[in-house]
């Protein structure tokens, strides 16, 4: 049984790392949504079903909707974040992102 716990925890850590290092904003939001779902399963394994339902409904549900709405609102659905070195690449993306938004 503890193997299942450990596998889920490793998956949790992988999701956390992926959510932070992914380049596109929408990727990190989707991975963060999967992070909440894995967290919901872990609550269930830790024998606290209250937390499982709340995390599923509130964490994965509403938080992700808000993230997507914000990305939609600021036309950043396709923004590509480079590292700090080549900032100019980031500029035209932002600019490109903006044009697409205003069409």
């Amino acid at each position: 049984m503890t193997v299942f716990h450990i596998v889920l925890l490793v998956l949790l850590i992988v999701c956390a790392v992926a959510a932070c290092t992914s380049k596109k904003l929408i990727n990190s939001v989707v991975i963060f949504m999967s992070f909440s779902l894995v967290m919901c399963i872990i609550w269930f394994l830790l024998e606290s079903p209250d937390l499982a339902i709340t995390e599923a409904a509130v964490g994965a549900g509403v938080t992700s909707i808000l993230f997507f709405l914000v990305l939609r609102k600021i036309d950043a659905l396709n923004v590509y974040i480079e590292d700090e070195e080549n900032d100019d690449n980031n500029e035209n993306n932002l600019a490109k992102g903006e044009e697409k938004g205003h069409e």
Partner: protein
Amino acid sequence: MSKLKENYKDSFSQKFSDFMTGDLEVPDEVHPRKKQAKNNKVIQADEFFSEFTDADDIKRRELYQAFRNRKFMEWINRAYNIISVVVAITIICVLLFTVSFLPAFGDKDNPANNEVSERYIEDGLDETGAVNIVAGMILDYRAFDTFGESNVLFIACCCVLILLRNDDDEPLPDEDVVDFRRDIILEKAAKFLVPVILVFGIYVVLNGHLSPGGGFSGGAIMGAALILFACAYGFERMERIFSYKTFRRITFGALLFYGLAKSYSFFTGANHIESIIPLGTPGAILSSGLILYLNICVGLVVACTMYGFYTLFKRGRI
């Protein structure tokens, strides 16, 4: 004597007296002429901001780039990244080192399993009437925390109202009209899904004290049902059932009932007066005293807040 010199302007005494009287000559480009408040009207942020054309943005970005690209700034950024990684790693190592000294995970005689949790489990059913001990603990033993908790949600909703709500007289943002295209698939799916989700949410709220769930999770599920309905059928039909007025009334009514009911039980508890609320038979729906009604109030507050977040983010008006 110094006044006679022709360049007494930059003599030490003049500079000192300027400093003392705050008359420091401030070069103009450090403080560009600030936009004067037109006839002292509170400038709506977006209206003030709309005068900046795209040219201003690009000019401003050069200003930022010039500032960033100086050699000095590059060095600072690299140093900042290194220092922050080092700080984070030391924090993780220190915490991991402490975790190895903490009591073992999951064994019976941890300090946390003492007489406090024993009473919750053994007398929980008799004292609060709630089969779900966690719900009984939240809404009866430690009710003051949960009252603070629903106030956190209420205050978060007020914050988002302050930030994102534009006035009623302003025309609807254009993307609201453009955005909503009748999507048959979503509508047909919502026609089936919304009632199911709503019934499930109501079930979770009503059975909060019997099965896992309760006010927070049930309210979030009901909020999700409202969001799906607004998504599928657009805001006009939603406006008929759920306008800003009903939003304010529901939140006000639920939180006021919660506050008054809980202050009654705090007052009777503190002054050792026997409270007249019956506990009922365990296992029945109308059983555990106030917990059912408090669950309903918290469920309503959470549902309205979640829906309120969605509409405020989507179109700036509930």
